[in-house]
């Protein structure tokens, strides 16, 4: 009996235990992104070697920093099963407010703090409404997106406000070859990564997104966690607004148009799910970098602007479908193996 089974069964080789399930899961998400990153860079560089020059990389990182900072905050929300669509307009509003304050000769630091505070305030409101009144965040923040856009346009009388002085440090500063916006992004990224992956708070965010009811019944402070991640996201949107303002030296009431979808696209590319409980800081960052490299590569390859959205959308569709298919197959395997 035993021997016949042995004869028919395939000999079992002990699988190497080097790759933990968590790492393997991450590789599924990260590898395609890394391949896209390298592939695109090679293609772009082969037509114009300047693509991989220091100055272009520097430019790409600066250009990605706004999206990158937004992605840090929004990653907490998506992992926690939440969503904030209002960030695009919040960036516009923050930009207008910052410019108005600077025009009124307010010190830079105050303008920065006000912008961050406005964002954080909006976040607290969303967090409280979502957790206490159980309003679906999608609809709620969609409303916020419209309202903030309108406030920004009204405050700025629909035209960009030029900065006479102020925020020069965002243009000039540099450390280890990294410009100030990149450095701020990096700082947020490291802090956000530690908070999400190496603190109890971060674990609770995952638990909240994976199963809110189970988390609540296990003693997780679900309401507090929700409010905090909305707050964090809002504050980072306020910070991103300052950076965009400094980069263009103007308070643009349309500065953040469309950013909310770009940031969600980047995070989903990075392995997060709108259903919550999945995603990581590294994944989101890779997603942001892919979008940044694509934008730059299209410019370098002289692709007309009108194709940009097509390429972004295409990458999103393909990447998400491939990951979903892999995930589906893997899950089935897990079920069968058990």
């Amino acid at each position, binding site marked *: 009996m035993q021997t016949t089974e042995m004869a028919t069964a395939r000999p079992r080789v002990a699988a190497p235990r080097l790759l933990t399930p968590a790492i393997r899961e991450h590789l599924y998400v990260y590898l395609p992104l890394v391949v896209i990153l390298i592939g695109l860079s090679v293609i772009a560089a082969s037509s114009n070697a300047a693509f991989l020059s220091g100055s272009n990389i520097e430019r790409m990182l600066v250009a990605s920093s706004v999206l990158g900072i937004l992605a840090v905050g929004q990653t907490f929300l998506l992992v926690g099963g939440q969503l904030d669509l209002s960030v695009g307009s919040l960036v516009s509003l923050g930009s207008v407010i910052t410019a108005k304050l600077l025009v009124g000769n307010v010190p830079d630091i105050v303008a920065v703090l006000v912008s961050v505070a406005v964002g954080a305030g909006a976040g607290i409101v969303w967090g409280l409404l979502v957790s206490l009144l159980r309003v679906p965040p999608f609809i709620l923040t969609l409303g916020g997106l419209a309202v903030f856009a309108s406030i920004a346009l009204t405050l700025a009388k629909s035209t960009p406000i030029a900065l006479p002085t102020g925020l020069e440090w965002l243009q000039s500063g540099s450390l280890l070859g990294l410009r100030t916006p990149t450095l701020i992004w990096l700082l947020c990224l490291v802090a956000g990564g530690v908070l999400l992956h*190496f603190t109890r708070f971060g674990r609770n965010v995952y638990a909240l997104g994976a199963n809110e009811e189970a988390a609540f019944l296990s003693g997780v402070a679900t309401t507090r966690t929700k409010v905090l991640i909305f707050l964090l996201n809002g504050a980072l949107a306020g910070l991103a607004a300052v950076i965009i303002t400094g980069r263009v030296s103007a308070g643009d009431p349309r500065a953040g148009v469309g950013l909310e979808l770009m940031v969600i696209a980047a995070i989903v590319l990075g392995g997060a799910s709108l259903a919550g409980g999945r995603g990581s800081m590294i994944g989101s960052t890779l997603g942001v970098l892919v979008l940044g490299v694509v934008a730059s590569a299209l410019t370098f390859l002289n692709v007309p602007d009108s194709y940009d959205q097509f390429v972004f959308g295409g990458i999103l569709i393909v990447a998400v479908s491939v990951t979903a298919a892999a995930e589906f197959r893997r899950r089935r395997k897990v079920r069968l193996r058990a």
Partner: protein
Amino acid sequence: MHATLATLELRKVQKSFPSVRALKDVSLAAYPGRVHALLGENGAGKSTLIKVASGALQPDGGEILLNGAPVRLTPRTAKSAGIRVLHQERQIALTRSVAENVLLDRPTRGRFGLVTAGGLARAAGERLARVGADLDPHAPAWTLTVAQMQLLELARAVSDDATCIIMDEPTASLHRAEIERLFTVVRQVRDSGIAVVYISHHLDEVMELADDYTVLRDGSEVASGLVSEVTTARLVSHMFGDEVSLRREDVHEGGTRPGDVVIELDRASFGGAVRSVSLAARRGEVLAVTGAVGCGSREVAHLMSGAIKPTSGTVRILGSGRGSRRAAARAGVGFLPADRKREGLLLDRSIVDNALLAENGITRRPLFHPLSATRRAADACRRLAVKLSDVRSPIRGLSGGNQQKVILARWLRVGSEVLILDEPTAGVDIPSKSEIYRLIRQHAVEGRAVVLFSTEYQEIRCVADRVLVMRDGRIAGEIEGENATEHRIFEMELGA
């Protein structure tokens, strides 16, 4: 035995799941104009059998015959063959009207092929009248009582082309009078020539209503025959077995000494579900609370855990009168909810995340070290003998029993003094069951408290020191653990 052909016949059907053999050579034949009772404890394989009989699951072996002809059943072919299932979970769109719900699967089209509210109401009215249900077709479904919803579902099932109706515990949340009314309707349905498969573990109902019976235990068919030729006592011994491995004598072993009160309800009410319930759980004992589905025991479990607050009366959890769920968890009240997937687990997260869910939620230490977390989770799982290959893999891959043990580990890890367990062994295989029973006993014997909410009588018999039986949101009575036989609990549940 019967001259006619069986409407639906299962022959030596087998079905295995990754962790358990759910059906072993089970046969069942449902004849037109007869009620066939399918009996068995929770987890005996009844639900799996229904799924096979309605095409939702494909059997691994055996045959399915419709009117004598072998077929391969899919949900679609089952439906076109006239097989209808009334599931235990209501399949009702609460925000839509009664009429729309009756015709949910096939809205009647009127003139010009359009679906109109009036046309739906007329067609639904006829169907409702057929089962003697006096409901307003225009009323939104959420305004119905549970019994009315039951009739609505029956009206939906009894369409012109229905040949076999499978009812899964239809009386679970009904009062005696409503049950009588349902029986009348079921008899009408039967007399119209439809085959009825009736699932219940209320034996008196079966004796009253059914013509044939089949008893399942642990996935096997242990008995079948004519109801007129069997006694209730025989059926009980078929269902629970004479020589089951889970016996009070083997598990209980005494040793419990009731100590301080840990959770106390004083005339606590919750809406209409719990009405002025007073009870006290003590250290050093296993208190079991039981009752039919909808009797309010589930709400009592949530009240005791701090997850909901009473609408009147008081709940004192470990001496504190105003506790949130979080405060209760911090104070040492562990909770294992009834619906493992919806309320208990982070299904897609690792075993580590699941085992440390409570610890991460209530600890005051801010930092989380992935490596030491893995070690602590592995340690906690090992202590409960959870069978797993890697604690970092998703908990989805574990069997029900092992998933349940991980939830227990979650609370033992944070040193919970009180465990509130709601159906801890639902969908759990026998060996895991007995391990969980031993854990429960050990917890109580060591001077901590366990409150067990269960509808499985054998489970209650095995581990309880004291049994409270609930009916209609009130406590109907209390039985000492050693006297809590299936029959006494039954009687108290029904108010007989």
